[in-house]
């Protein structure tokens, strides 16, 4: 476990958060967050509920503006939704389009492409998430886990450089969750995309991450950035019984338990 100072002026970073803050009226939700999200890695933002994780993702994706500070994606300041970004939302049942069948949902973001390429991407994305032969179902005919796979396929079909996921597995059962975590790591390794996951689950953060960005309680700052060097591919039994996994998990838990916000980054 190596700790890096968050604000180092890195150039290899895919995504750079520079003193991002957000307040809603008088309510300061995010005090000041600086962090680097390295390219082609899985980074995980972990923090207590209400600490501004979703707010941060909305700012990163250009859906919302920071009150102060700046987000840079591939060096360019984010102003509006940048190209090459895809998002998987927590609530699949609210983010998929129930009037479209699975293949149409996946195809929708790439409607502007030529038919042949579109069909190829849809087929590939659906195969990646293991939903071949389920293309003609409606989302509501599927289990929660399968719907979240559709949402992941939809994100993949758009060939993102950066995949954002907001508590993607918070509404599925434990077994499905474990499967989807492995699915994410396999796809990330295969396609080499940059992934930024938000979660409040400490186990999940350590299991998935190359880098963990721990947020303090609100108004949030970065409590610590932890680079996780557990070997890949990871496995739910072997990795989670690994001594280093246990250490990192305890460390993150302690960080999140401590009441007062940690030192300002």
């Amino acid at each position, binding site marked *: 476990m190596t700790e890096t100072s968050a604000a180092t002026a890195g150039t290899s970073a895919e995504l750079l958060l520079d003193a991002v803050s957000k307040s809603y009226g008088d309510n300061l939700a995010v005090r000041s967050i600086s962090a680097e999200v390295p390219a082609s890695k899985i980074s995980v933002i972990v923090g207590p509920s209400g600490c501004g994780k979703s707010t941060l993702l*909305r700012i990163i*994706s250009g*859906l919302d503006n920071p009150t102060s500070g700046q987000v840079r994606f591939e060096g360019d300041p984010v102003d509006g*939704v940048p*190209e090459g*970004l*895809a*998002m998987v*939302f927590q*609530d699949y049942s*609210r*983010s998929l*389009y*129930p*009037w*479209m069948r699975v293949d149409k949902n996946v195809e*929708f*973001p790439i*409607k*502007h492409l030529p038919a042949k390429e579109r069909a190829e991407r849809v087929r590939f994305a659906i*195969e*990646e*998430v*293991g*939903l*071949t032969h*389920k293309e003609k*179902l*409606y989302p*509501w*005919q*599927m*289990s929660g*886990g*399968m719907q979240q*796979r559709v949402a992941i396929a*939809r994100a993949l079909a*758009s060939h993102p450089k950066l995949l954002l996921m907001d508590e993607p597995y918070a509404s599925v059962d434990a*077994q*499905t969750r474990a*499967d989807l975590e*492995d*699915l994410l790591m*396999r796809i990330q*390794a*295969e396609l080499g995309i940059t992934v930024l996951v938000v979660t409040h689950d400490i186990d999940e953060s350590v299991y998935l991450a190359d880098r963990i960005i721990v947020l303090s309680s609100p108004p949030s700052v970065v409590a610590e950035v932890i680079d996780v060097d557990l*070997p890949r*591919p*990871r*496995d739910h*039994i*072997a*990795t989670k019984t690994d001594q280093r996994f246990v250490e990192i998990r305890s460390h993150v838990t302690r960080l999140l338990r401590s009441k007062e916000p940690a030192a300002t980054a």
Partner: protein
Amino acid sequence: MTTQQHSTDQPHVPLSAPESEAVEERDAQPAPSTRRERAGLSWPVKVALRLVVPAAILLVWWLVSTSQRMGLYVVDPLTAFDRFVTDFLSADPSRFFLGDATYDHLFPSVGRALAGLAIAIVVGVVVGIVLGISPVLTGLFQPMVHLGRSLPSPALLGVFFFMFGTGDLPKIFLIAFSIVWPILLNTIDGVSSIGQVRAQAAQVFRIPGRDVLFHIVLPGAAPKIFAGIRTSLSLSLILMIISELQKSENGLGYQLIQSQRNFDYAGFWSVLIVLVILGVAFNLIFKFVERRALAWHRGATQQND
């Protein structure tokens, strides 16, 4: 070692996760357009149940027509039906077996009702979507919408005559103006029912405005829009009659007034029969269209119940 066993799982093969096997697609309804039977009732029973109330009404009608006082104005069902056949039907195949009254009164009436309905749907949906998308515009126009909705529109017929002369136009506009409100309010409601997350998803995937409108906003609001149209549909028949009570040369409303003035009670009751048939027909067509357009919605709501 478990790590090793895992790495054999890693290659390209699409995941055959236990979950995708175990949790099969829920209740695989093959074609969502298939009609769902109401639980427990076989269709002969259902048909019989539906006939009970009309039969009771016919019985009461007949009883009233035989009473001393009321019988003067209420002709018995058979006479009325007989009159309906003579007026509205014919034996002429070249006229599609339809009678003079059908061509002279029924068709003009229905034509105006449908024209009014078409205008109301277009205006209601377009304005409703614009208002529904923009909270600012909703705020601005909400009071006006509620004012318009509560105006006693039949009383405005005079104004419409004044503005549009005496032909079909004032009648059509009266119908449209009176029935646009349920569609408008439901469309506004429907647009906001689509949900913030779906809108954000569209934004993140940089869906062009046109596609957002036609593939997200319209289908998403469609269930509510259809509910509004259903209300407006029955209102349109009422307004159709009201618009023909004054300054009219044809139409079912005109017929109602004329037959009353001429003490032609059989004629009066035969028009009422036509109105019932019309109401049922409108409803059937509506249900047919709705079933096809909203197949996904019935499935989705059944799942969530």
